């Protein structure tokens, strides 16, 4: 009996029985010596079962036994586990962070999958079959057959109203979403408008309030009725959720204060786009700044098609530089 009591803390702690210290047996594509897409097949099955339930219950957060990944929590471990469980050898993978393919962590995640799966990668939204993203939805509308995988830090949309999982789970179960509206309405009372500008909560298929991940609310309308499948992975918080294609996704709002997206007075300095999400770049310490498309693929495609923004003429070095 005593022994059993003690067992609680140890017998689930695996013991390193003769780990192979000099590389592991290579398997199935990729050159890393790990399984295809890094995860073992048992973990993939667990994630895959969670994904199917997530798709069957749109917007509901399915708990899953998230694994430690070789990159830190917060770096996209949830999205990476989803991608690793979904990816197959004939996929074409695109990875973006802040809308751009060349941000450091996007580069790092892309090279992780290139190494562990050997799949083709692309910066083109149109060519990709699988897109992993952090904080943006590509400007180019997604099409049927594409899968968009979001990296999610805090999957619980009610977290800022109620930090306890034990409470929020009950609120979701009973569709008690009044507090969410109260929070948004408090914004209106104080500021005259809803002050939430990213991670703006949505109602999915008329049932579950869902966090769209920290995308700017500019991107929220792209989730609605999308022909693509949208999958969300939160590694640290151990949750997976999904929006099937052609599903109603409504940003929470009020009749007298309808949902609206960000607008800029400027257009993209490079390609002249006036309908894309813009990053503000500080150019000097005299207040000089410019706006450029956050979606690097969208911007490049436009410039290749001959569009030129007000500062487009002076920025040819953009593509060539790789200064570390």
């Amino acid at each position: 009996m005593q022994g059993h009591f003690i067992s609680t803390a140890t017998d689930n702690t695996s013991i390193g029985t003769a780990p192979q210290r000099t590389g592991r047996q290579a398997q199935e594509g990729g050159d890393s010596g790990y399984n295809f897409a890094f995860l073992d097949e048992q973990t993939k099955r667990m994630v895959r079962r969670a994904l199917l339930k997530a798709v069957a219950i749109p917007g509901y957060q399915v708990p899953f036994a998230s694994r430690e990944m070789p990159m830190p929590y917060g770096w996209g471990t949830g999205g990476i586990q989803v991608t690793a469980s979904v990816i197959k050898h004939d996929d074409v993978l695109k990875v973006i962070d802040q809308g751009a393919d060349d941000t450091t962590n996007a580069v790092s995640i892309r090279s992780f999958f290139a190494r562990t799966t050997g799949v083709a990668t692309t910066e083109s939204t149109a060519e990709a079959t699988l897109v992993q993203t952090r904080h943006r939805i590509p400007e180019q509308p997604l099409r049927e057959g594409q899968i968009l995988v979001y990296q999610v830090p805090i999957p619980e949309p009610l977290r800022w109203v109620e930090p306890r999982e034990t409470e929020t789970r009950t609120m979701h179960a009973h569709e008690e979403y009044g507090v969410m509206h109260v929070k948004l309405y408090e914004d209106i009372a104080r500021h005259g408008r809803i002050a939430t500008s990213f991670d703006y909560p949505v109602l999915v298929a008329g049932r579950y309030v869902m966090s769209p991940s920290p995308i700017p609310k500019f991107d929220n309308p792209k989730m609605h009725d999308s022909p693509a499948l949208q999958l969300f992975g939160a590694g640290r918080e151990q949750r997976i959720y999904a929006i099937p294609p052609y599903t109603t996704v409504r940003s929470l709002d009020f009749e007298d204060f309808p949902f609206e997206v960000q607008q800029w007075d400027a257009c993209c300095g490079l390609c002249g786009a006036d309908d894309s999400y813009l990053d503000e770049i500080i150019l000097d310490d005299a207040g000089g700044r410019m706006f450029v498309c956050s979606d690097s693929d969208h911007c490049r495609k436009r410039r290749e098609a001959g569009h030129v923004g007000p500062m487009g003429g002076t920025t040819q070095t953009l593509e060539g530089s790789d200064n570390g």
Partner: protein
Amino acid sequence: MYVAVKGGEKAIRNAHAQLAEERRGDTGVPELSVAQIRNQLSLAVDRVMAEGSLYDPELAALALKQARGDVIEAIFLLRAYRTTLPRFAATEPVNTAAMRLKRRISSAFKDMPGGQMLGPTFDYTHRLLDFSLLDDSGEAADAPQATQADRSEHAEPCATAPRVCDLTGMEELLEPAASGESDWGTEAPVGDLTRDPIRFPVDRDIRLQNLSRADEGFLLSMGYSTQRGFKGSGGHPFAGEIRSGTVAVELAPEELGFPVCIGELKVTEAELLFLYDGSETTPPQFTRGYGLTFGSNERKTIAMALLDRALRCRELDEEVVAPAQDEEFVLSHSDNVEATGFVEHLKLPHHVDFQSELEILRRLRTEWTERGERRAQLLDTMKGAA
């Protein structure tokens, strides 16, 4: 001229090269071997194994070397490795009553069968820097060597001893060890938070697993808070017994039908006793808090036992009044690999969201200014009218 910074693969490669260079440091100084770390920084190795949740001193030492001594980074390396290991079988529960003891003390009992055994402890060292360790040239010649007499000074000759809290004679006043929300029968399945996500409320098995993997500093602070009064009830804790040493790990393959020893683990175990004034159904007695970790780590084991007891509040019908009693709060924030990831992810680019906030802030600011101006105008008009 605007030049966008591209975080290309080259930049990442450069960062890795610099990291390797920094890790090695001055090449005029001999490289540290994994064996040296394993043998001479053994407490760091033990901590990495405990929080990395993998008993492998060699790999823990390697992780410390690779992480340049950053313990949490080393823990993370070990965790990420652990997650890829196949599981062959579940061992029998280890029996700490049969521990080959290196150290064993009780603060509750003056003496006990088997005796107190001080062992290798910092407890009574004077914290004076030992400058002789600066000179490592001749160490091998006069390496410290505890004599056999030194070893057994405070111990009975036997290397094992029963756990004092299990001894008969205390039954009346001490709750049985098997108490808990769960069914502790031998057939009860033991949960595993690395295979099933935590669903609150949890049973004691999951709580102890979480605490055993938890960050030492977090447990230390939370345990400390209970001692300073941020707790429900439970009285002053007494160290019923703290012991560390080696336990056998046994596996009972189905085809054999009996357990065979497959290895040994160094562990530290703490059992704390707390006065409990009883409830409607439970008589007044000493209740227990339990801690167990890989390797030598009394600080963490004691803190773990404090928290285990604090978190038994629901089971013991105590009011939750302090952070250390709040199961969801403690267990959700105890893991340093999770915590460090989320805290440090603030380093990653967030400029899209920042831009969103800038846009809304500019609008709010404009409207705020306009409202102020309107108010001032109105005030002027009213003054004029008066």
